[in-house]
C-alpha cells in the first residue's frame, strides 16, 4: 500500500476549508474542528492536513478556545 503510494507520488493536498469556502471557522463549531484534531486530541499540523496558512491559524485559535470550553478535549479520554 505504502509503496504503491510512493511510486506514484502522494496525492496533492489542498486546504479543506478553502475548498468548502469557509471564510472563518467558528470555535463553537466543534463538529468541523473535530476534523482537524487527531484522535489523541492534538491539532493536526499543516504538513499533514494540507490546510492553508490563514485557515490553520484560525483552526489553532478556534481549537484552543473550544478546549477551554470543554467542547473539544485537551487529550483524548482513552489515552489519558
Amino acid at each position, binding site marked *: 500500500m505504502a509503496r*504503491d503510494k510512493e511510486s506514484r507520488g502522494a496525492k496533492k493536498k*489542498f486546504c479543506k476549508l478553502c475548498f468548502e469556502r469557509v471564510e472563518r471557522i*467558528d470555535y463553537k*463549531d466543534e463538529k468541523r474542528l473535530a*476534523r482537524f484534531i487527531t*484522535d489523541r486530541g492534538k491539532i493536526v499540523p499543516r504538513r499533514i492536513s494540507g490546510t492553508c496558512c490563514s485557515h490553520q491559524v484560525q483552526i489553532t485559535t478556534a481549537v484552543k478556545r473550544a478546549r477551554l470550553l470543554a467542547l473539544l*478535549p485537551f487529550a483524548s*479520554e482513552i489515552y489519558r
Partner: protein
Amino acid sequence: MVKAYETIYILDPSLDDARWDEEIEAVKSIITAKGGEVKEVQKWGRRRLAYEIAKKREGIYTLIRFDSTADVPAELDRRFRLNESVMRHLVVLFEVCAPPAVDDGLGDSHGHGRGPRGFGGDRDRDDRGGDRFGDRGGDRGGDRGGDRGRDRDRAPHATHAAPAAHAAPAAPAPPAAAAEAAREE
C-alpha cells in the same frame, strides 16, 4: 469604542433552571449597567463536557452576544471568576463565522463540499486517524491517476454551487458517480 463581543460560560449542572435564568439576568445587568447592549442570548442548556471539570461531566452553557466598550469584558471576566457556580468562561470579540458544519441532523458534514472528493464521506470520519496520516491511496491506487486529476479540477465548480443549495446532494454527486464509474472499468 464600542465593539461586538460574545461570551460563553459554563455553569454548574446542579443548578436548577430558575438559578440559570438568574445568572443570565445578572450578566445582562452587568453589561447594561456599563452602557452595553445585549444583542442575543442563546441557552445551549446542559451539554456533556469533553473532559471532566471539577468532577463534573456536564455543564450548563449560555452564550451572550453584546455590544459594548472594552471595560465590560474586563468586568465580566472579573465577575465570572468570583462566581463559584461558573465553571468556565470565555469573553471574546464577536466574529461573523461560517455556519456550523451540522445542519442535516446527522452529525456529518455531507453536502458541504466533501462529496466531490468521492466516496470517502463516512469512512473519512470513522478511521480518520489513518486517513489523515496519508495512507489512503492504497485501495484506491489502481488506475485512477488521470481520473483523480480531473476530479480535483472540477471540484471548485461543484462547491461553488453548494452554498446556495447545500441541501441538494446533486452538486457533489456527479463527480463521485464519475469516479465510481471509472473505478469499475
